[in-house]
């Protein structure tokens, strides 16, 4: 079942571990990275887990590369122009080659994007390219993207790895035997256990300074941290348990990078629920969320208290936009104004003889979210709101509950918010595909459409700040925390470390921006 190659590499690792006890296996320019899940596929068009994204970023190269500051810079594309807001023309670098030696041309780019856009191909990221009407090859070096409407965020999504049309059409299974034009290529993949990559000398920037990267799958956060402490891993990164972070940060054997991440943890209020239809009700309940305690005690300060829908890592961020903050008296006062009073002195507010009852829901996989929910439930209860906690596993919770709009208040998160559009457009426009709470506000609709149709960043900043201000008082979402990104590495790594909030690894193999 195992290839000879993988056996040899595992034996090599065993030797390294046993000959020297606890030091990292980086003698020959290798890097061992801990990861939380195995990749589901190595096809960049179908990638959906963090490991698949991180491997794809190394095995493939896209038209653009996204820097740690979230700016798109040329990768396979040498340059691009936008003759009008609905057309993007990319010029490829000359002499590009896939890792199998075959040339990479505009045809491969067109093939990658046209398959990705095909509904039957079921790419998880197809929704990000909805406004793209056509992708065509002008000549072997030039690709044209035509849009149905101006779409500003497009560039930040064009880092999708370009696959080899020839390999794919010859029936090669791209998902297990990837052929890309990135800095590394696949050496071996032991399902459920590890993925090993080796340097690709054909990458246009030349081979990276690290010869070999191994991603070892260790599902449990704490077990991964322990393997890192034991020297079995060179690098570990989010998700990590808050307790482990505190301990590792205090250990001077390890380097430590902490930065604002690209995710949020939030409460989804169901605006269609009769009880929650009134924004005042949502405001009152938001005031019962003790963000400080959740972030500092439960997440132990890894994440940050959030104040609005625009992330601190974004160019559109403004500290002046503020959601309601924790204030139990204020919340109760507001609830009283809405007619909810404790008339029968049972400690629970009531109106027309009915107690104020609400269901808080989250999924069981994330112990931090479960704890946050249990904590909120207790605070709600003390304030006189009869709160029920509902916890089920992710498939039940997401597909049969929140996404069907059956929830009242749900605790969950969004990731990869590289552009403000990605956290707002589909979520808050009337009838938007992920507007599960059924929120609708004509003014917000207009602003969000404006935000994606202009390429002027100053204008976009203004528009998103306006929208975020309205949403901070309308509260279809209450953002609890902005997720932090955390990486630890052994201090004796052979290369300089440049981290990105997405946890991509190019900055660890000598390919800094």
């Amino acid at each position, binding site marked *: *079942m*195992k290839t000879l190659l993988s*056996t040899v590499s*595992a*034996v090599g690792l*065993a*030797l390294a*571990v*046993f*000959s020297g006890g*606890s030091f990292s296996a980086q003698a020959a320019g290798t890097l061992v990275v801990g990861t939380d899940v195995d990749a*589901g*596929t190595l*096809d960049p068009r*179908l990638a*959906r887990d963090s490991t698949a994204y991180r491997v794809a970023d190394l095995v493939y190269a896209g038209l653009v590369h996204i820097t740690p500051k979230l700016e798109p810079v040329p990768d396979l594309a040498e340059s691009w122009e936008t003759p009008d807001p609905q057309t993007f023309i990319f010029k490829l670098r000359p002499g590009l080659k896939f890792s199998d030696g075959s040339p990479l041309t505009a045809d491969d780019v067109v093939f990658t994007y046209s398959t990705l856009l095909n*509904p*039957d191909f*079921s790419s*998880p*990221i*197809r*929704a*990000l390219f*909805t406004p793209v009407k056509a992708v065509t090859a002008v000549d072997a070096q030039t690709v044209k993207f035509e849009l149905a409407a101006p779409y500003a965020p497009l560039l930040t999504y064009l880092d999708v790895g370009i696959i080899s049309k020839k390999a794919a059409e010859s029936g090669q*299974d791209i*998902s*297990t035997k990837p052929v890309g034009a990135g800095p590394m290529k696949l050496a071996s993949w*032991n*399902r*459920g*256990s590890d993925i090993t990559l080796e340097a690709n000398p054909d990458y246009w920037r030349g081979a990276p300074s690290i010869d070999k990267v191994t991603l*070892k*799958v*260790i*599902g*449990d956060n704490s*077990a991964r941290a*322990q*393997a890192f402490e*034991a020297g*079995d891993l060179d690098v570990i990164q989010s998700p990590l348990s808050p307790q482990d972070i505190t301990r590792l940060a205090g250990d001077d054997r390890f380097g430590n990078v902490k930065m604002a991440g690209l995710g949020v943890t939030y409460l989804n209020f169901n605006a269609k629920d009769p009880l929650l239809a009134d924004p005042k009700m949502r405001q009152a309940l938001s005031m019962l969320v003790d963000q400080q305690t959740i972030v500092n005690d439960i997440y132990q300060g890894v994440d940050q208290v959030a104040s609005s829908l625009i992330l601190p890592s974004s160019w559109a961020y403004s500290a002046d936009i503020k959601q309601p903050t924790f204030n139990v008296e204020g919340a109760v006062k507001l609830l009283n104004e809405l007619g909810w009073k404790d008339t029968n002195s049972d400690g629970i507010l009531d109106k027309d003889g009915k107690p104020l009852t609400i269901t808080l829901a989250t999924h069981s*996989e994330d112990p931090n979210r479960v704890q946050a929910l249990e904590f909120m439930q207790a605070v709600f209860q003390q304030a006189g709101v009869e709160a029920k906690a509902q916890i*089920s*596993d*992710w*498939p*039940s919770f*997401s*597909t*049969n*509950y929140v*996404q069907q709009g059956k929830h009242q208040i749900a605790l969950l998160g*969004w990731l990869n918010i590289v552009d403000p559009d990605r956290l707002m457009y*589909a979520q808050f426009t009337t009838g938007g*595909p*992920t507007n599960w709470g059924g929120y609708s506000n004509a003014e917000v609709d207009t602003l969000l459409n404006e935000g994606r149709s202009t390429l002027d960043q100053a204008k976009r900043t203004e528009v998103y700040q306006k929208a975020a201000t309205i949403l901070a008082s309308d509260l279809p979402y209450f953002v609890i925390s902005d997720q932090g990104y955390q990486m630890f590495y052994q201090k004796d790594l052979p290369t300089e470390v440049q981290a990105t909030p997405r946890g991509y690894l190019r900055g660890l193999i000598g390919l800094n921006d």
Partner: protein
Amino acid sequence: MIAYIIRRLLLLIPLAIGMVVVTFALLLIIPGDPASVLLGQEATPEAIATLRANLGLDDPWYIRLWDYFAALAHGDMGQSIFQSQPVSTIIAGRLAATIELAVVSLVLATILGLVLGVISAIWQGSIIDTATMLLAQLGVSMPVYWLGLLLMLLFAVNLGWLPAIGRGEPLLDALAAALSGRPEVLIKSLSHIALPAFALAVNSAAIISRLVRTSMLEILREDFIRTAYAKGLRRPRVIVRHALRNALLPVLSVIGLRFGALLGGAVLTETIFAWPGLGQLTISAISQRDLPLIQGIVLTFAIIFALVNLIVDLLYAAVDPRIRLG
């Protein structure tokens, strides 16, 4: 004998069909849509609908069930929804790890059980007996995952003697490597399997030790043992030569039964120790609603379960001539 084996194997067919149907029925009503889980939160409802249709999830249940059996008749367990590989390939890749863990565990449990059982039988009624049996009782009273985590905390984290998680080279390969002059490979494999195998073995060891004790006590009272003493044979020799051999018979059947229990118990143990076996796969398949994979796993367990029972019956007949298969 061969006719018996064939008949037993034929009986496996209705059992497997029944298990597939029961699992199918459960998966039919379980909430959670694999298409939606696969596509992630950002997917549009249209994209989810398309994928559902392409996966055949919208077909009526009888067509889906029929299709499954039709494919199964050709030896095809279908394609995993989440890992772009055939179910049979995925399971084959994991099965060896689980069987390795279960076998090592069983060997460990049998050795521990025999030693503890014999010790407490010889010193019946003494403090040693009481202590050993209390230990055995505690062994069956602990949640396996809790024991696993405590062992990991002690031996891997605090003492640093053993790796906390993962698997080394497959034991057979490691053995071959050791024979060809690389013992460190075998040492690494053994160090990886030690904690999960022990955590998994404790429960069975406890059960086996109690059985060995009871069975030894009965035999030590029998006439031929007294005769052996009377002939002047010394105590250890009597115990090993005569008593233990006769006490082994009932133990054997339980050891077979425990193998099935160990495979089941492996689910939690594998999850804790990141052991890349079927148990871990079961949990992840359920948590993703990878329906064909869940079906395949259940079917695999059915076959193993039936085969182990058959082997136990055959062994039992081979050891005890009084039992006749028919």
